[in-house]
């Protein structure tokens, strides 16, 4: 069973593989290609205003994906399906707290982030202390949140965003970019700092990559894992607030559009669901990629069914570049 002949093919495969190991690079290249494609299909697609609009939408997804990213990095099948519910809940809370007045912005921020963090902490406690698998725990929590939405919305107007918040999200704020983009950039910097320059970040990677080794090295594994879920909830809460600034008012179950896409953005950004490697910069690119892809599909003139078919297939093809598992035979 001589395998020497396969050497050359192997070498070129390795070269290709090393390129693919830079998910950020791949995502950026794909973003440029997709923008070019969009411009070809519909002139004006890649105009600055359009790109700005895409970035705003991507920022909303990206903020949710930040928390999702942390939970996934922490390993042990970490995943947070409840983010969709938290986004919806937080949008309603924000709308009702602000109710169209600028004075309500600060209380709204506090309320949204606190509510998100609270539900995230419940998830974290269920996952670590009761050892419920994250998929099950956050799925159950999603059901609770959906129920809560019905209760809150009953009879009460779903509220309106404060004008200043809408402006922050949609109008240019600094250097021609809206505040939410700057917020997203800030979150990106904070995440990079958290993961690369804090002990907490090192510990997140350690528990995600080898929990047993982390435990023996004195890492407080459970505390870290609970705080990852808390952060995930808090980010989702913040995203819900921004969302109502974007849409003006909240509508039913709006957050559900963020549940699985936030996971996809993380995976496309080069963080595998098995955890322990990857980072947020890639996820930001993944969020932009996902939003551009959806936007291209809405600009081309085909039926909704065709869009979904193409979207699903494209995602599958993209994943072939990233998240393939290991072969059984090493």
């Amino acid at each position: 069973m001589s395998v020497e002949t396969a050497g050359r093919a192997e070498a070129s495969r390795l070269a290709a593989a090393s390129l693919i190991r830079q998910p950020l690079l791949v995502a950026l290249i794909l973003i440029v290609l997709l923008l070019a494609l969009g411009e070809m299909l519909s002139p004006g697609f890649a105009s600055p205003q359009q790109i700005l609009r895409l970035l705003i939408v991507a920022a909303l997804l990206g903020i949710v994906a930040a928390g999702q990213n942390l939970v996934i990095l922490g390993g042990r099948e970490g995943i947070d399906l409840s983010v969709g519910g938290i986004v919806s809940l937080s949008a309603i809370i924000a709308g009702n707290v602000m109710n169209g007045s600028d004075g309500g912005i600060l209380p709204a921020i506090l309320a949204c982030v606190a509510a998100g963090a609270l539900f995230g902490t419940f998830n974290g406690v269920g996952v670590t202390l009761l050892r419920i698998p994250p998929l099950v725990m956050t799925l159950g929590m999603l059901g609770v949140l959906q129920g809560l939405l019905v209760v809150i919305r009953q009879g009460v107007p779903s509220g309106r965003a404060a004008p200043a918040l809408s402006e922050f999200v949609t109008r240019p704020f600094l250097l021609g970019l809206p505040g939410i983009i700057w917020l997203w950039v800030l979150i990106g910097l904070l995440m990079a700092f958290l993961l690369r320059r804090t002990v907490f970040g090192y510990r997140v990677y350690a528990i995600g990559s080898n929990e047993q080794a982390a435990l023996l090295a004195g890492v407080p594994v459970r505390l870290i894992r609970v705080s990852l879920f808390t952060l995930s909830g808090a980010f989702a809460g913040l995203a819900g607030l921004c969302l109502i600034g974007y849409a003006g008012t909240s509508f039913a179950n709006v957050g559900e559009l963020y549940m699985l896409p936030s996971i996809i953005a993380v995976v496309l950004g080069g963080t595998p669901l098995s955890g322990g490697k990857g980072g947020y910069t890639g996820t930001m690119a993944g969020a932009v990629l996902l939003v551009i892809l959806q936007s291209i599909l809405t600009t081309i003139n085909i039926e909704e069914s065709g869009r979904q078919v193409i979207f699903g297939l494209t995602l599958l093809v993209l994943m072939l570049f990233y998240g393939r598992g290991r072969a059984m035979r090493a």
Partner: protein
Amino acid sequence: MANLTIRGARKAYGATVALSRGDFDLKEGEVHVLIGSNGSGKSTLCKIVSGSVRPDAGEVLIDGKPVSIDGPRAARALGIATFYQELSLAAHRTVAENIGLPELPGKGGIFVDRARLNAIAERHISRFADVAGEGFSADTRVEHLREDQRQLVEIMKALATEAPILIFDEPTSSLDRAQVERFFEILRELKAEGRAIVFISHRMDEIFSVGDRVTVIRDGETVGTSQISETNPANIIRQMVGETELAVTEGAPPATVEAKAEAVLSVAGLSGKGFAGVSFEVRRGEILGFGGLHGQGQSAVLRSIFGVSPAAAGSIRINREERAIRSPREAIRCGLAYVSGDRGRDGVVHGRPILENVTPIHFLRNRLSLVRPGSLRERAAKPLSALKTRFAGYEQPVNALSGGNQQKIVIARWLIDRPDVLLLDDPTKGIDLQAKADLFALIRSLAAEGMGIVLYSSEDAELLANADRILVFNSGSVSRELTGADRTRYNLYHAAYEAA
């Protein structure tokens, strides 16, 4: 029946070469022993034949014809069955299902033929019935079995395939005497039927009891093959270890530490899962050895002291102060350090940079919350260079290093801030000779600086060469203490096998 030949088999995982040149030839009607120290490449060679590892180079021939083994199924089709050292059992399935799993007997196309499955299982279980111990039956789930019983199931699973070529990778490591004897009886019968059998074991007596030929493998290369009848244990050991190892291990026995040095760790009446009534003291500057056969409670005691699975009874004093240690975190704060030999499971944070792998203890002991890579690199440099660690840069992923260097990284993380007591749990498992030599040189100098060290090693030569005092473990208790001139290979063996 069949003959098997392997020529020039080679396998590397990244920078680690597991097998550099494997040559092997197996004839029908023989038990061919494969021997070599941990990490020498025996298992890799076996896995190439059983199809679960893809070789980088080399060829396999059956009856002189080159064959392609592109997976375990292909190996099965070629008549090769394997006992895997780490076992290939499904924990939630029954004994019978596991025995029949490779070729579940079918009925009517889709059903499992339970009657036939049970008949096959019973046939193999019955041969071990009187030695298998309680709670062993065809419908017991494997998760409820003891380690030795699981090994028996793995043996039965290999036998049930009726394959002409059988590979047994350390099938006897947890078996008791009676179980081993029964297994050997069966091996002799199979040999008489003309089967070709590969047998891996670390126990000399077993090798000379059942083997026909022996092939020695060292550092990924097969060194030579001889008839069992024409060789002796000393010869085999010499081939196994090579000349450098002898120089390391047969050095002058270390001096005994002055008895008046103060005890840095004292353990009294420690009992827990797998050990009972263990008491000992480690003084500053002393290397206390734990010896005995593998799995007699040595690791369990160390892990219990370190708070991994806290003991049910007993007391632990560190620097004369009584401590209740309930987690590794508390142990580290008390000044303990623990290095496991299973670095893949317990040590290395896989796929992460060296800097992340070398710093966690430093963070904890200094209650840091921010990372300053510059100063961290500076602090890590000293222990890393004391261990003669070879690496390209702190951002290099740890898995790119060889096994020995990975272990050095794991050890270095404990030495940035000096612990009082270093617990070493078979720390040299599967690392190369040079790394071992570097490691022991450092341990001796750490002891000289006043650290207390507990060293459990599964290699007797290492213990004899490095420990000032040796506690021999047997069935979870200390059966004998060897000091001064008593530290001889004979005494160690004698104490280890006493009650076995």
